[in-house]
């Protein structure tokens, strides 16, 4: 049974030239995707035997990403850039991680705490969402004493707004409670900054030497048309999507809350779709009205994920594209309908600037209107703390996340720019790095910028198609249990095997850490022997072996950044001009042959 050895553990930071597989570049926190795919593909066939190795792989991922088992349910950004996507479908990395998660989440409560001596400065993290916790995790591992100030009575922030049919509540709560335990992070609940005497200045006086502000966007954005707030948002029967998701996640809404009701959900983002599908599960007859167009590839395309849209469609939700809301119609103080002019364009070169054709206007009637057009930060608090400029924008260095008004304050996550969970996590990591530099008196910028270069797809005779994602059929999934089936061990091994490991060996080293290879052997070309015939170029699947001119002679060379040390070129060379340095295979063969 293989066991990964620390000596072969790859860390992205160590890779020279920062060449990475495209999935790993796409992942904001550069997770070691290829390496763990290889390890998953080599799991034992029986679950009982596989379990310790699944935990081993997961422990490795956890070091860098203590949220990975949540990512396995809701992320999958990496799949967008997979080299395989045009050759049979991207590797289902999200589901592979969910497969690990299904074993690892149970194991988390037994995971030992990190034995870190925390004797460095006190740092305050404001907000217990993914951004804040990631920052706290990174700093705590480095020996800082971190306290998270969470306004509510539970960690997770906006993650709780994700409906439980996509992310089960127990996976979320188990992950969060163990994260703070394992990393030794102190949490103060019900501690809302800006309320009572709790201010950033007070934190500073209390001995916190740096502050990471990741308060997220607690308030819904109000509906506007042509720059003006649309009237009627205070009518009975009008609500905001966030409020609904919040109340549902707290168990405050009955199962048939919207039974027999006609609902209109305004918005085209993932959250709007979460709201619509939630409302549908509560018995409502739901129509989504989105400003954006149906064609996702156009500039004005709907931002929600393909899977959200098809899921909603399957569940019987109507989607009206390219319509804005000019007016909310009420009757006797109750919501009655909306009038929706055609949206002719959403973005121009300057950004969001919707244009409408009011001659083409339709009216939609309904019993309830749910507005889900975005969320906004607590501006009043930021204003009081003097973190905004005169135009009401945060003044933060986008590279270091350091506030330009208060040097000991760092700002990141949704409060700065709304994004995916993993983008907030990335900002948490950036802030943690900045805070360390700030407290250690180091240069805030030096050596931080990384340019990554992706890899092209290797040459291959055949490609396999991806596995079918299994969803419970719509008529059977009108509840809040997971509707997507996880992978079996067999499926996970097969899917991981599809990964063509297009990335460079230096950032992977899976084969070394499990003892398949001793090192990444360099290919050496004996120029005296090389005739420049090009057989090696033909044999190489990675565009690594190539021909070049030296003193008027054509000879072959190997680009070590692309080379996988597979030895195909060595075997292909008719004049034995190529050799893998330090590779013991030849000796091993000769030893066996010698005793025949």
């Amino acid at each position, binding site marked *: 049974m293989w066991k990964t050895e620390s000596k072969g553990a790859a860390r992205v930071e160590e890779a020279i030239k920062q060449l990475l597989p495209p999935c790993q570049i796409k992942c904001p926190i550069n997770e070691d995707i290829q390496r763990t795919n*290889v390890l998953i593909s*080599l799991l*034992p066939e029986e679950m009982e035997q596989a379990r310790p190795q699944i935990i081993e792989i997961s422990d490795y991922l956890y070091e860098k990403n203590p949220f990975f088992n949540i990512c396995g349910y809701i992320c999958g950004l990496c799949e967008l850039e997979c080299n395989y996507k045009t050759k049979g479908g991207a590797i289902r990395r999200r589901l592979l991680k969910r497969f690990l998660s299904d074993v690892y989440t149970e194991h988390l409560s037994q995971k030992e705490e990190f034995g870190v001596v925390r004797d460095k400065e006190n740092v305050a993290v404001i907000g217990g969402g993914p951004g804040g916790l990631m920052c706290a995790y990174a700093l705590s591992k480095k020996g800082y004493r971190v306290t998270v100030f969470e306004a509510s009575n539970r960690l997770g922030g906006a993650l709780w707004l994700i409906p439980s049919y996509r992310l089960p509540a127990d996976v979320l709560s188990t992950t969060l409670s163990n994260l703070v335990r394992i990393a030794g992070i102190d949490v103060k609940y019900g501690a809302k900054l800006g309320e009572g005497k709790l201010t950033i200045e007070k934190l500073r006086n209390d001995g916190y030497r740096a502050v990471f502000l990741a308060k997220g966007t607690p308030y819904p954005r109000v509906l506007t048309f042509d720059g003006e707030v649309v009237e009627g948002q205070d009518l009975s029967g009008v609500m905001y999507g966030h409020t609904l998701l919040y109340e549902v996640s707290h168990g405050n809404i009955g199962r048939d809350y919207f039974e027999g009701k006609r609902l209109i959900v305004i918005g085209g983002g993932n959250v709007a779709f979460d709201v619509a599908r939630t409302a549908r599960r509560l018995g409502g007859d739901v129509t989504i009205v989105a400003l954006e167009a149906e064609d996702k590839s156009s500039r004005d395309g709907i931002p929600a994920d393909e899977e959200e849209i098809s899921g909603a469609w399957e569940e019987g939700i109507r989607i009206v594209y390219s319509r804005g809301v000019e007016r909310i119609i009420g009757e006797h103080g109750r919501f009655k309908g909306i009038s929706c002019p055609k949206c002719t364009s959403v973005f121009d070169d300057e950004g969001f600037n919707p244009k409408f054709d009011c001659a083409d206007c339709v009216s939609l009637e309904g019993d309830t209107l749910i507005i889900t057009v975005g969320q906004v930060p607590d501006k009043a608090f930021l204003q009081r703390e003097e973190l905004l400029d005169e135009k009401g924008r945060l003044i933060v260095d986008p590279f270091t996340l350091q506030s330009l008004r208060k040097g000991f304050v760092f700002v990141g996550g949704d409060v700065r720019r709304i994004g995916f969970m993993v983008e907030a996590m990335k900002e948490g990591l950036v802030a943690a790095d900045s805070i360390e530099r700030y407290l250690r008196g180091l240069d805030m910028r030096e050596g931080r910028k990384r340019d990554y270069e992706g890899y092209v797809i290797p*040459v291959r005779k055949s490609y396999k198609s991806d596995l079918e994602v299994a969803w419970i059929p719509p008529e059977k999934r009108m509840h809040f249990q997971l509707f997507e089936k996880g992978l079996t061990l067999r499926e996970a091994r097969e899917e991981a095997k599809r990964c063509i490991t297009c990335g460079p060996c230096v950032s992977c080293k899976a*084969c070394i850490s499990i003892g*398949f290879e001793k090192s990444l052997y360099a290919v050496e070309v004996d120029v005296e022997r090389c005739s420049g015939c090009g057989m090696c170029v033909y044999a190489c*699947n990675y565009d690594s072996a190539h021909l070049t001119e030296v003193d008027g002679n054509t000879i072959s060379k190997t680009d070590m950044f692309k080379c996988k040390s597979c030895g195909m070129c060595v*075997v292909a060379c008719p004049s034995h001009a190529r050799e893998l340095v330090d590779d013991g*295979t030849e000796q091993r063969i000769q030893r066996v042959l010698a005793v025949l």
Partner: protein
Amino acid sequence: MKHYEPKLVCFSCKFGWGYLADEEELSHRIKNWVPIICSGKIDAIHILDAFKQGADGVLILGCPEGDCHYQDGNFEARKRVLLLQGILKAYGIEKERLRIEFSVDPEGNTIPQIVKEMSDAVARLGPVKKTKDKAKTASAAHR
């Protein structure tokens, strides 16, 4: 005819065969076994050398088609085997003495069995007929 046990050399791809087993332990059960990172890394020379050194057969175990970690190493190995079988024939070495199998067996438990099966088949052929003349004619024909 007295009992004759053929000498087989077995190469196996590490990504397909026996990677969960203890290599040391498994090597006691498989004589002349060479686990190799990719079947595509087995040179024609290695195979010819094996026969030169007195092997009665060479068995190559590659990973399943389309599974190669190095994209197409197993395909290359198969190609090489087919071409070599023709050359070996010219030396009087039957093509049954060089065999390639594509499958996956993480525990490697089936390897001794496959070796045994091939060994039985080779035993029926008897030892490689080393007729010097034959070799001479063959090499002459190649010149």
